[in-house]
């Protein structure tokens, strides 16, 4: 077979565009759909079963039929009769969507020495996050967030220090990670592009788990659930530029309300209340974040990745360098990084974010570090190693 160049691929599409079934076949299929649809509208269960039986008995392979079952479960196919055997996507996401309290671990990157955050959700108003040591035995930092008042209490148990942060200029009510998970799943299910891919069974943490991957235009969710209980074991989510993994789920457990108190604990010394403006994060915030990475964290170079595993590795490997700075400075750096990070997270696919900073020296005015296209702009904004910014036409973008 000859090599497929782009011209040949276009020719293939052209040939496909001329593929046509006979009018008889079209009329037959439309008649079948009409009959099934009439039954569907009338809510006649027996007819539903008949449609379903016909699907199952058709020449579509068993694999395809299994995929259809999963999709159908999501759209309420349980009306067709008794429960469907086996674990389905709807079963595994149900506790995430409905539980009163949820506790789980969040990992933003894979690998060794990556901190784990234990997230405790009481409803969706108050959330406690405990940053655990990589071995999971020590609580290194605690964040308690009150989403109603947009305040966050940060505690460092080893130093008995506390700081209250007020989040200002939020474009809308902030969303906790549980809400984010719920919204991603709901948005996925309501999108015309929604699809679920069954991943079969694998052993996860010593348990037999059934996996599903659901994909939408901006998001992708992979869930592994216990094959016996259908409760989630592991969930991997990608949304725009953000990616995280959740493990060790516990649903509807009792939790003490004092865990979510916004009062500074006895014996803790408090830094002055800090304010962070997250709303309206802009390009300047991104540039400031890049400056902190290149100048302070990596001493002269930009990170290999701006968000992702290599970035986490860089931060972890270089964390001792932070010790020379005061708590106030570290807080200031952290807030600047947060604003820059927020700017990237809120970019959409059409903003076409590209990061190419690997190996670029801080101050290099020739080498691009990243670029994106602002919404409604014809040109791209390219940020270089000296943190200068230029408007560049799409055809002139770096290779």
């Amino acid at each position, binding site marked *: 077979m000859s090599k497929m160049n782009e011209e040949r*691929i276009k020719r293939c*599409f052209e040939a496909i565009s001329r593929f046509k079934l006979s009018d008889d076949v079209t009329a037959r299929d*439309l008649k079948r759909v009409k009959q099934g649809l009439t039954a569907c509208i009338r809510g006649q269960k027996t007819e539903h079963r008949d449609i379903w039986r016909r699907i199952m008995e058709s020449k579509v392979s068993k694999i395809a039929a299994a*995929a259809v079952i999963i999709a159908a479960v999501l759209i309420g196919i349980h009306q067709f009769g008794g429960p469907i055997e086996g674990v389905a996507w709807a079963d595994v996401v149900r506790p995430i969507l409905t539980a009163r309290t949820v506790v789980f671990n969040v990992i933003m990157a894979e690998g060794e020495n990556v901190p784990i955050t234990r997230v405790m959700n009481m409803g969706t108003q108050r959330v406690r996050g405990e940053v655990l040591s990589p071995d999971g035995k020590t609580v290194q930092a605690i964040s308690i967030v009150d989403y109603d008042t947009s305040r966050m209490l940060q505690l460092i148990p080893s130093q008995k220090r506390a700081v209250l942060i007020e989040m200002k200029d939020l474009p809308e009510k902030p969303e906790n990670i549980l809400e984010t998970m719920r919204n991603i799943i709901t948005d996925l299910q309501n999108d015309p592009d929604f699809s679920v891919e069954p991943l079969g069974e694998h052993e996860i943490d010593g348990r037999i788990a059934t996996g599903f991957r659901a994909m939408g235009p901006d998001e992708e969710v992979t869930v592994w659930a216990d094959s016996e209980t259908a409760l989630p074991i592991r969930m991997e989510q990608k949304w725009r530029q953000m990616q995280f993994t959740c493990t060790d789920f516990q649903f509807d457990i009792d939790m003490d309300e004092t865990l979510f108190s916004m009062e500074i604990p006895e014996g803790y010394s408090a830094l002055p209340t800090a304010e962070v403006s997250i709303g309206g994060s802009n390009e300047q915030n991104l540039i400031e974040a890049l400056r902190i990475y290149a100048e302070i964290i990596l001493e002269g170079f930009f990170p290999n990745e701006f968000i992702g595993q290599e970035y986490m590795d860089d931060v972890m490997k270089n964390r001792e360098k932070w010790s020379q700075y005061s708590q106030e400075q570290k807080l200031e750096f952290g807030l600047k990084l947060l604003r820059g990070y927020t700017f990237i997270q809120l970019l959409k696919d059409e903003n076409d974010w590209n990061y190419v900073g690997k190996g670029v020296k801080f101050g290099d005015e020739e080498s691009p570090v990243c670029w994106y296209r602002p919404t409604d702009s014809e040109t791209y904004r390219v940020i270089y190693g000296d943190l200068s910014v230029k408007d560049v036409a799409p055809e002139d973008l770096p290779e």
Partner: protein
Amino acid sequence: MELLNTSGVRLHALLARLTLSEDVVGDLMQELFIRLCRSSGFDNAKDPFAYAYRVAINLAFEWRRSMRLKFQPLDEDCLPAENARSSLDVAIQTEELQRVLDATSQLSSLARDVVVMHYIEQQPYEDIGRRLGKKPQYLRSLSAKALAQLRMVLADEKNNPITEG
């Protein structure tokens, strides 16, 4: 039901092109309308046909991904008549068409929709942009990237062909 009457033929033709199989199209048409019948997204859609169209593309590629390891013989009778084909078309083997469609199923959903609408359904970028709420220039760029990605996927496949079992 109204959508079936007004656009059923067009949706059926779309599924036929994306599956290249007479046997599957009827079942996918049923599944498409069952999904739409149960979808709150469809009830609230500003453009019901556009919504159904994207669900149809998605369904076809969902089926195609599931079938990727199985060889699907092409219904030769449904291809354009020999005398209507250009000399290059004649040279294109039916297996290639399946491979190109399989590779298309690996694109992101947006890139895949744009490729289908532009190259298979032969719609101008301006119309696609209106339907998807994106700028034509962005869609051109996305489409060019998608073709490059398809070329790479097909090249990888050639070097490491997928085999059954």
